């Protein structure tokens, strides 16, 4: 049983961490919390099943198409739901516009795809039991994403520009950085990370439209607790959440796990609204 807890826990943790990173990438580029993160994860599973199982494409082609779709949806999210309301960030209209957009896609999926969970194809056939690919694929995707982001942010000019925008929007614009294009690129990147989470975790999560709200919540918990914008917090929090949830699932049942996660989430936030890694916001008068 311990192996199952660890295998499932790490797999789910990796998925939560990736969704958390999706939130972060969008947040650092625009200071917007977007409801689309969970929806992207859901789409990764659904589109993967559509391309590979239904249409019979090779795995690699399927992955490329899924990533492209994620990037496209990311860009649309930015143009339709974020850019128009960015001028009045203090009115929090982005909460509504991103929620509406996420719901649109989620409902469209429910109607056009299926309201029942559909199987996700086996991508590779490696490893017996707890070393099955369905458990380590999400881990590998998470690891690749972290390393990729680190290289992007530290080693490339575009990555440094991302960081500059995240650090100080006005200053970055004054330096002549194309803020709008960089924001769009960030959303495309977030879109790819989001669908990758659902694609890599497809066999665990299945291709199911209702994964969107589930991933939205459980992907948000680690970023909220770890501090918005902190990828390290998202990864540590994601794995902790995944392991805790699976342990509770196996030992005392799923309801207890949900209630416990919810209670911990609220209590920690009430004690430290900025999370463990975030900076306390200064009051603006």
């Amino acid at each position, binding site marked *: 049983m311990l192996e199952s807890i660890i295998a499932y826990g790490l797999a789910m943790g990796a998925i939560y961490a990736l969704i958390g990173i999706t939130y972060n990438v969008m947040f650092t580029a625009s200071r917007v*919390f977007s409801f689309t993160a969970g929806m992207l994860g859901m789409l990764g599973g659904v589109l993967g099943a559509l391309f590979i199982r239904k249409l019979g494409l090779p795995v690699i082609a399927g992955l490329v198409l899924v990533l492209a779709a994620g990037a496209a949806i990311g860009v649309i999210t930015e143009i*339709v*739901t974020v850019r*128009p*309301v960015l001028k009045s960030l203090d*009115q*929090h*209209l982005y*909460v*509504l*516009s991103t*929620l*509406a*957009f996420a*719901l*649109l896609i989620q*409902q*469209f999926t429910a*109607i056009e795809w299926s309201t029942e969970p559909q199987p996700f194809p086996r991508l590779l056939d490696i490893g017996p039991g707890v070393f099955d690919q369905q458990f380590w694929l999400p881990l590998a995707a998470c690891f690749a994403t972290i390393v990729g982001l680190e290289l992007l942010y530290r080693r490339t000019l575009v990555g440094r520009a991302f960081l500059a925008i995240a650090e100080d929007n006005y200053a970055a614009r004054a330096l002549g950085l194309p803020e709008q294009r960089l924001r769009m690129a960030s959303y495309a990147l977030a879109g790819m990370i989001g669908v990758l989470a659902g694609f890599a975790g497809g066999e665990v999560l299945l291709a199911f439209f209702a994964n969107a*709200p589930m991933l*939205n*919540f459980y992907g*948000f918990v680690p970023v*909220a607790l770890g501090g918005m914008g902190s990828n390290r917090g998202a990864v540590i929090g994601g794995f902790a959440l995944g392991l805790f949830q699976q342990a509770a699932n196996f030992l005392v*049942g*799923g*309801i207890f796990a*949900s*209630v416990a996660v*919810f209670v911990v*989430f*609220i209590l920690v*936030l*009430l004690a430290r*609204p900025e999370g463990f890694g975030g900076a306390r916001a*200064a*009051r603006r*008068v």
Partner: protein
Amino acid sequence: MTDTRLATTAVPVGENPPRVAARLEALWPYLAIGAAAVALPLTGDTYWGIIATRACIYWILVAGLNLVVGFAGQIAIGWVALLTLGAYTASVLTAGTATPALPPFAALIVAGVAGAIFGLVVGLPALRLRTFYFAMTTLGFATIVTQIALAWQSVTGGGIGVPGPEFPGWFSTPWGFYYLCLALAAICTWMTANIAASRFGRSLIAVRDAEVAAEAFGIFRPTLLLTVFLFSGAVAGVAGGMFASLQSYITPDAFTFDLSVLFFIAILIGGRGSIIGPMLGTIILTVLPEFAAPLVAWSTFLYAALLLLIVLLIPGGIADLIDFKNRRPLERHREIAPRPEMIGPLIGHTAAAKSLTLENIALSFGGVRAIDGLDLEVRPGEVHGLIGPNGSGKTTTLNVISGYYAPDHGALRLGGDTLAPGGAHLRAGRRIARTFQTPRLIGAASVLENVMIGGTIDGHASFAESLLTLPRHRRDERVLRDAAMATLTAVGLEPLAGVRADRLQHSELRFMEIARALMLRPDFLMLDEPAAGLSAEEIKRLGTLIVAITRAGPGVLLVEHHADLIFDICDHVTVLNLGKILAAGTPSEIRSHREVVSAYLGA
């Protein structure tokens, strides 16, 4: 914001007939909807009867949620949890699976109480968490309530469900039940409209749109929000009980997230801060899928599309679309003509002469010393000017006095009393009022309502009294409205009393903020660059107004860059530089002070 103004339209004091007409103008949509609803059974169409019943039940919940979402601006998207809770409470109690069976009306009351308690629980995080975080907690709560309903089989029947309560006698017939729901919906409409037109409704919108200013006028956000969550939860619980009865049998499947979406979107489509808007929104969203069977599956998709369109194209919602009054053009060349002679009777007090003193106040932000050992005394009946270059600590000083910042050390005294550091919402009780460098207005509310915010702490009626328009509430409103009208006349803005504040010019907003501060009948008034953006003529009028205020008793602390105004009206001037006093004295002393002239005033 259409209907919260229903009784506060621009009516000069003492003219009663137009007020009645304005009331009618605001009431007719409710009367029309009500009449149609009462007449519906005449059609004999029971199918539409059920849909109308459902619309009534949804509205009972949405009316309460409207105060949370539309007025207080809290993004509570998981409100279906409270419907679920109310439905199960009422059903389980009448079915008697856990307790001796209760009669349906008693069960309904218990459902309301349970809803109120859990409304408080769901709302509690809103005191600390903002927007998205709070939205997520309500979402999480909704998921958990459904899971518990599924798992707690011995009581809720799990996935099999439990029968809903059946009301006795005539109420068990479809039309009898419909009238019961309609009556409850009408009561909820009436109660929320009362709140909307009370100081609580105005305070909620103030907390939403101008939180900092709300605090300065003594509005304490936590109590206000919790009261509203309590009320909203109670009506949601009652709605749940009625919903269970309508369904006649409930399972966790009946409470999908789609319902939450419907409630939430109905309010936003209707327009924030309105009551008729969300009511129309609820009716439209309930009825919309009925016009074509294929639409039923697509209903949530449609709601989401509507929400996106509304947010992007008309953030004001239906209420804005039908707000014809605020589309009539305003006069182009308006002049602000204050009547300083009216100020004295308005403030109407000569408080025991107490000085406001700052002793050795210091405050650092990180490594920056914003204020560095400041001593200051503002005496009653005097204008005290505070000048200095940008970043010298003027506004920070005001913020320390206002209680927004707690100083690192030093004392703040009013007469013999020490004012506690921080605690901004307690300053209004000490009769310390202020204006802001950038006007903090409630854009969607009328000028009159903005000014009435200033008198919030002088209201006596409790939330419950306002809910039921008991006499104390009506007296409060009358007194506040008359005082606000008189204050507006004194600062010269009375022709604009009924206009949405965001339609005003910048200079008018400055005078509006002064009027709002005067509503507090302050002992001390702090003005943060009131002359910024004013024409020369307006500055002159402002000066006369400020002098008239000090004549009536209060001390004024004036932060300003216009040297002429400062030297014309101040009795004392303090010059700050880098958080320290560079010079202090009478205007003529300052004008000839060598360092001040070279550092700040120029040759």
